């Protein structure tokens, strides 16, 4: 019984945990601050060597929103957008905590790996 419950715990954790692209999107939303909507997010990701489509970003943001890590609000509509509204995103307190935890874990793990030292690459 314990084994089974552990299996379900892993499944639950897998659903809850962030994948690398979701972490990148979260970081970009944090960097952009009040201007975090589709176009700047895609541009910022591209600037950081992560090419992705607009729709893919929205799918990821949808997943992050379902996990409670980001929140969204409808913004203004402009003629440039064919009269369609923007959707702005911001990272929630829970999202920020999650990013900090991951940062701590990653930094700790990185420090102990000699292959990842800049000189050895």
């Amino acid at each position, binding site marked *: 019984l314990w084994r089974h419950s552990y299996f379900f715990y892993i499944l639950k954790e897998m659903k809850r945990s962030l994948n690398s692209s979701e972490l990148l999107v979260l970081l970009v939303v944090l960097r952009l601050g009040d201007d975090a*909507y*589709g*176009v700047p997010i*895609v541009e910022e990701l591209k600037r950081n060597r992560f090419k992705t*489509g*607009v*729709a*893919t970003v*929205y*799918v990821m943001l*949808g997943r992050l929103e379902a996990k409670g890590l980001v929140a969204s609000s*409808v913004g203004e*509509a*402009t*003629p*440039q*957008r*064919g*009269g*369609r*509204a*923007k*959707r702005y995103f911001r990272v929630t307190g829970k999202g920020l905590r999650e990013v900090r935890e991951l940062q701590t874990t990653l930094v700790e793990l990185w420090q102990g790996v000699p292959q990842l030292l800049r000189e050895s690459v």
Partner: protein
Amino acid sequence: MKAPQPPKSATWLLKHFGCGADVDVVMGDLAEHYQQGQTQAWYWKETLAAIIVTAFNEVRGNKWLSFRAVLVGLIVYSYVVLPLTSVVAIGILDTHRELEWRELHVGPGNSVPLIVLSYAIPGILVLLALVMGVVTGWIVARMHARRRAPILLLAIAIPAGFIIGNPSADSFVFWIGVAAIIVGILLGGLFIAGRRQAHSPTEHFHQVG
């Protein structure tokens, strides 16, 4: 100077086949990006990617509904539409055979109907395939009006894969027939969509002017 407008056909496709609550926002983002100097090829690529990505996401999020849609599509196609249209097709082919037999054994009479029918048969069969698609697409879309776009794309993908995998597929008319079924499914599904959108209060919710 007037700002460049994105390709209308691509926008139309995204409007009708894009899924989820964010389609309108994605369309706005693409329009904005396009006006900032992106190419038509980029717009088309993003549009097709958006249709596939959002449909996949919807299907993944609604597994049971998608399974039911595929099942409904296959049942309607295999047990209702295909037998009915086959009866018509067999009737036409029998008439053609009978006319041919008469020409051979009774002697050349009035050969005009035979010639006309010989040329018309491929067209009639393709037309029947189109009708089959329209009826299947209409029923599937009617049963899944809320998730119409991903369900329709699924309805196209599965029979297409099933038919393409058929080793006996070797004639040109067969491929045109497959294309006609696919177009028919889209037409049948969109017929419902057009009527639904005309009455939808949320359609222009985020739009200005």
